[in-house]
């Protein structure tokens, strides 16, 4: 070989020739010389003190990742987080709602004094502003409590332990163990959960994680679940136990969501996304003391404000749309009423009603505004209701709109399973760059939602 300029093919030929000479344990041999060097150097520069302290990490890990106690402890922590959120958020929510209501009525009075046309006043204050104040007062307090708690668990190092505990379940369903982590992120925001699936290397398992992330309720859906749990489930218990019952119901819904995540993963892994679950190493990091300032920053600025801002940006136009739908009448019946009537039969079949389905259609941009939208259409006065307490909402739903326990249960199920919000769908598109997978990601949960609520409604009507 005397050529002055070796062309790449020659180099490769030569390399292949040498490779065959060396034998195919090449990789093992470089790795072992690498490791030997690392060990030699590390040994020379590291001294482990004789009075090495107790290894708390390992002791704690033995408990929180134990086959027997691991899952119960996890559920306990989850229930505690929801309970603190439910108990802590109730009062500030009411205060905010009352405050916004005062602002609104003052503004309406002022506008009327100034002689602003009634439809402008109605559109701005009873439509857009009321939508905004609903979202802020219903969402802000639970988020401001839930996110810091979640961030503490994350900083502490608990999340990888959760993944460790759930790993076998995901592998059994043919998915990747790290999906437990991306699922946990989904509790914050499904779009964030979908992005987090990048930690999964295998495209097949990553797709499964993307398509099923929606089955855990995100922060936008928690207020709906918490409200329903408080109004319907907790009301069936004595007041002293009400908050525990509500927290228990939310945990139950979360577990159903995890169940559907596993079921859908299993179905996908056996149909369109067949393959073996791949092995991975999950490092359990040391427990670290969370830094308070950073937790507050991450959870309040990065998460709470971010999610709230998004909700506000979608609630304002949605409030406007609802106002228009409710105030444009054709032959004496509002557009909102007409659309709701149109959807009523389908709604009835799945134990809901037309108004709820219409609210879900309007709320596609953000799940956060489903409940306010629904209440607003129910009120039929072209503006969101000014109900400020859960008790009043209960009166409205049960006594005026004929809600039953079936409606509440199926709404919780529908809220848990239905299609992802627009942001998540866009994120799925960005991550997969595939119209096909994006469509499946949007429609598969919807199909689940309809199938499950239809089954529950049918069984309920037969047996109850």
């Amino acid at each position, binding site marked *: *070989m005397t050529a*002055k*300029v*070796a*062309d*790449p093919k020659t*180099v*490769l030929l*030569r*390399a292949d020739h*040498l*490779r065959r000479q*060396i034998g195919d344990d*090449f*990789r093992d*041999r*470089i790795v072992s*010389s*690498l*490791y*030997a*060097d*690392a060990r030699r*150097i*590390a*040994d*020379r*520069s*590291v*001294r*482990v*003190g004789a*009075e*090495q*302290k107790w*290894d708390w990490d390992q002791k704690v890990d033995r408990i929180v990742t134990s086959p027997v106690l691991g899952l119960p402890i996890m559920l306990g922590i989850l229930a505690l987080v929801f309970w603190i959120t439910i108990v802590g958020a109730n009062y500030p929510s009411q205060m905010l709602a009352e405050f916004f209501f005062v602002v609104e009525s003052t503004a309406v009075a002022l506008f009327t004094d100034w002689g602003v046309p009634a439809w402008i006043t109605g559109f701005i204050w009873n439509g857009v502003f009321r939508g905004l104040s609903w979202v802020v007062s219903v969402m802000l307090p639970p988020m401001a409590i839930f996110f810091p708690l979640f*961030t503490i668990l*994350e*900083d*502490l*190092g608990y*999340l*990888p332990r959760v993944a460790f505990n759930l790993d076998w379940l995901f592998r059994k369903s043919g998915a990747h163990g*790290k999906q437990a*982590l991306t699922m946990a992120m989904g509790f914050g925001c499904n779009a964030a959960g979908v*992005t987090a699936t*990048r*930690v999964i290397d295998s*495209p097949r398992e990553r*797709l499964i994680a993307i398509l099923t992330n929606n089955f855990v309720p995100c922060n936008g859906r928690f207020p709906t679940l918490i409200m329903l749990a408080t109004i319907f489930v907790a009301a069936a218990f004595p007041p002293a136990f009400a908050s525990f019952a509500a927290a228990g119901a939310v945990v139950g819904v979360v577990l159903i969501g995890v169940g559907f995540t596993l079921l859908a993963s299993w179905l996908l892994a056996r149909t369109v996304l067949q393959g073996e679950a791949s092995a991975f*190493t*999950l*490092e359990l*990091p040391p427990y670290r003391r969370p830094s308070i300032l950073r937790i507050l920053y*991450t959870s309040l600025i*990065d998460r709470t404000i971010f999610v709230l801002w998004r909700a506000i940006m979608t609630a304002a136009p949605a409030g406007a749309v609802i106002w228009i739908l409710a105030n444009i009448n054709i032959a004496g019946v509002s557009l909102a009423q007409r659309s709701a009537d149109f959807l009523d039969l389908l709604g009835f079949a799945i134990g809901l009603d037309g108004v709820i389905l219409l609210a879900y259609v309007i709320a596609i941009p953000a799940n956060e505004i489903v409940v306010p939208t629904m209440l607003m259409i129910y009120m039929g006065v072209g503006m969101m209701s000014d109900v400020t307490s859960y008790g009043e909402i209960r009166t409205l739903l049960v006594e005026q709109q004929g809600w039953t326990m079936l409606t509440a249960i199926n709404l919780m199920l529908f809220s848990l399973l239905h299609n992802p919000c627009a942001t998540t769908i866009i994120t799925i598109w960005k*991550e*997969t*760059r*595939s119209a096909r997978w994006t469509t499946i990601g949007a429609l598969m949960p919807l199909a689940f939602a309809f199938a499950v609520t239809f089954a529950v409604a049918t069984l309920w009507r037969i047996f109850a």
Partner: protein
Amino acid sequence: MTPTAAAYSNCETCPAHAQLAQMGVSLGKFDYLVALAGNPNTGKSSVFNALTGLRQHVGNWTGKTVMRAEGGYAFQTLRYKLVDLPGTYSLLSASEDEEISRNFLLFGRPDCTVVVVDATALERNLNLALQVMEITDRVVVCVNLMDEARRKGIEVDVRSLSRDLGVPAVPTVARTKEGLHELVQTIADLISGAVISKPVHPSHPPELESAVDELVPLIEQSAPGLPNARWVALRLLDGDHKVRQALLSGELADLESQQSAPMEEISSVVALQGRQ
């Protein structure tokens, strides 16, 4: 700097997508480019945040940095662009993260690479440091989590470590910013040449070394100006497909022109298109 929509979609549809070629990084208005590599959960993102003042999300679990985070800092009138690579245990296997890190070290041509290592698990962390040192000479080892090591009664002799590795090593506690000034100073000194690094290369068995020695001149002829022909030789002997293709398609030889290629988001490399 974001690529235009057209450039973005071109990158997406290019068959060479997700291969070595697209990792070119435009240096922009920065004087120097510094890469941050390290095992997962060694506090790499903390170092990044502390230096850049950015607030990339930090969490106590592995694999958070799924995108390549970029930021900058200025030190003694010079501007440094800092690129936080995904945390990896090695650069050998073909996982997405490892490829991103490896490609950046190879094609991004950082002026300095900081390998963040966990003082409490030095041996395992050095595996990566040694691999990085095979790709580039300009390495600073940042021995992070010194506080945790102290708490666990582990003492790290950073001077001995530095001598054995042949590259500067700086003890730090990124969360409290301890040692970060020294780190920044060391990076500057290494780039300016005030500090010279002579990284040790793992001593492979003699028959491997002779094969490497035979290949290196050939590779250098085929791709003149390639700074790490030794590493390429090792990869070829390992039958690394990406490196083979990069050599065949002339991407390795075109390294110089890669420098001015438009910067591309890692997120798109990780996108699944073309990989199903």
